[in-house]
């Protein structure tokens, strides 16, 4: 603890009094009692209590850091594997992501309107609740909706389909017991929704997240759908927008690691013209590209919906096909079946859609 008194976050007059009383370094003050300090520095008892409080608040993180031992990479690997991931019910996408959307990291989903970003987010909010004995996380979800596109009717459909899927997979007594509690009502009751109407409300919500997460420690997924919508208009000062977005990204990754949750953000696409050619690129600018740990881009190719893993520290770039059915986010019908030794949830009976694809009806 080598902090000098002048560097402490105190009022200058206070610091002058402390220095005049002979306190040069923060560690000189740590063992003082308030009455002692009050007499020696000539400050009131209230002020002495405050000075010691400030010292304790600022000192703790340093002390904590010194107290934790350094971790080996093997420890970190075990920790990461223990965190788990949230399946998407599209086995091709789960394989490309290395098991699913990872917990402890931020994942960004970009795509044009209508390609399936909100559908994937809703699916994840349901899938995070799959019981542990089925290979899920058994956790709750918080959905921060900035566009107003969260329609609970659709989530109820997906919840129903997920329950049916698990019913078909249940093999042993433990799973059957877990199934009895897994109802559509239970799934809906574990999904929290907040609607933010502009970026100030969104910033406020993220500041209130730590309190919410301590009240609900079982939350394993936070979705912000979408982070682009409130930030894409009435910002004359783009540098302020970049600063706010960076701040948000930092807060979210901190929350993701501290509370062991997966943070999923959706982003819109915009047109960029370069060399006379126009391309669709993720919105919010170049610097935002560095914000999330993983980036998934959903796009159309003719009639097919494709998902490309664009940026990931641990997985290879890959493009897979998916579809949106009545039941939710699923594999495209002609994808190869998964191997038998994958997790129970994304088993070979993954695609239960016996009903015709909606796209064929039009």
């Amino acid at each position, binding site marked *: 603890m080598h902090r000098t008194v002048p560097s402490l976050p105190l009022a200058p007059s206070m610091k002058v009094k402390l220095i005049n009383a002979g306190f040069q370094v923060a560690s000189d003050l740590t063992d003082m009692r308030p009455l002692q300090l009050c007499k020696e520095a000539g400050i009131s008892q209230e002020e002495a209590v405050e000075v010691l409080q400030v010292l304790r*608040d600022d000192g703790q993180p340093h002390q904590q850091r010194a107290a934790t031992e350094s971790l080996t990479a093997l420890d970190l690997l075990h920790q990461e594997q223990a965190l788990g991931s949230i399946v998407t019910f599209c086995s091709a996408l789960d394989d490309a992501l290395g098991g699913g959307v990872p917990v402890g990291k931020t994942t960004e989903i970009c795509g044009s309107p209508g390609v399936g970003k909100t559908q994937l987010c809703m699916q994840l909010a349901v899938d995070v609740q799959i019981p542990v004995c089925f290979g899920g996380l058994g956790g709750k979800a918080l959905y921060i909706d900035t566009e107003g596109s969260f329609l609970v009717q659709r989530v109820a459909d997906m919840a129903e389909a997920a329950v049916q899927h698990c019913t078909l997979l249940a093999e042993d007594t433990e799973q059957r017991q877990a199934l009895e509690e897994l109802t559509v009502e239970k799934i809906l009751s574990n999904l929290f929704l907040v*609607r933010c109407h502009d970026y100030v409300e969104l910033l406020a919500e993220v500041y209130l997240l730590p309190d919410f997460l301590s009240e609900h420690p079982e939350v394993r997924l936070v979705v912000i759908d979408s982070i682009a919508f409130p930030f894409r208009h009435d910002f004359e000062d783009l540098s302020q927008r970049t600063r706010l977005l960076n701040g948000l990204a930092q807060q979210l990754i901190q929350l993701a690691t501290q509370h062991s949750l997966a943070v999923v953000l959706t982003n819109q696409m915009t047109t960029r013209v370069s060399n006379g050619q126009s391309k669709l690129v993720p919105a919010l600018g170049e610097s935002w590209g560095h914000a999330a740990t993983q980036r998934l881009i959903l796009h159309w190719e003719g009639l097919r919906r494709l998902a490309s893993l664009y940026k990931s520290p641990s997985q290879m770039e890959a493009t897979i096909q998916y579809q949106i059915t009545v039941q939710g986010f699923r594999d495209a019908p002609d994808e190869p079946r998964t191997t038998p030794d994958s997790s129970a949830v994304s088993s070979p009976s993954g695609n239960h859609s016996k009903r015709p694809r*909606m796209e064929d009806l039009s």
Partner: protein
Amino acid sequence: MEWEQLDLNPRIIAAVKKANFRSAKEILCVSGPDLQRLTRLSKTDVQRVHCSVAAVVRKSKPVTALQLIRGECPVLEAGHRLSFACPVLDGLMRGGLPIRGITELAGESAAGKTQFCLQLCLSVQYPQENGGLNSGAVYICTEDSFPIKRLRQLITQQPQLRPDLPPALIRSRRFSDNIYIEHAVDLEALQACVSQRVPVLLKRGLVRLLVVDSVAALFRSEFQADEAVQRSRHLLAFSNILHHLSHEYGAPVVCVNQVTDVVDGPNPGRCDYGLVGSKVLPALGIAWANQVMVRLMLRRLAGQVQSDSRSSAPRKLEVVFAPHLPRASCLCGVWEEGVRGIPDDNSDLQPQGSS
């Protein structure tokens, strides 16, 4: 900024005031370390400032989806929709138009978009249990003048369109009195209309449906091809106002859009929304598409459909995207009493010829 509302030590509030912060927005837009530097407060004090200001800004606490589906939070989830006044069309839309959010209806000219809008202006005036919102509508015209004759015809034919409703109920509605017609000749007038006059009508509860016919006309005519950035900016500002009005007053917003021709093949710089083989796409590009929650396309098909010895050109109403709807479509015809969907099983009403 109501400082008394904040749950903070007066010493902290004094420090924040001294650093010249006047609004919650300013405080929330400053990061923790910056706030520490500007107010000379400690890290935990600054965290407390952010948390209590955020608590004041937050409009409502998180609710569960179960509460939503049970109808306990009507502000977030209305639990009902605005009916199209036709069971087939309502079936396609799982009940009708969502109460909050922008619904776009795109199509070529003479496809029937205005017919749909007029029908909605009448449907909104019925009570909630009959699929309406018990209120009037604002109709903003930017292209042609308002089709008043057609509206009168639709009003007299309401009993034919809604045989399920008691005639006394239909007679009791004063339809023309509750439709407010605005003409906007340029963007400035349009902006003034939606930011000044429409909010007054919404606040007084006189209207709960906003129709803009059409969005494309003014935005396409007032900007040159190379002014895409300015056009985007105006478009976003406009749609932002619509979005806020829709969510604050629980009023569906219907925007009619034109279409552009697709001259080249698939272009990676342009999003096709999976509409492969379509010769037209909704206008105004991806900037507008990002603001729309439900996108519908109306296409006029060749051939004829018959109904009681009357005939009409068939139309195909397709859901291009919506958060709660699959990509489906249905056929419909435009009759004297309005737009009626054609159920799939009615084979003698199938059109001859294809799109």
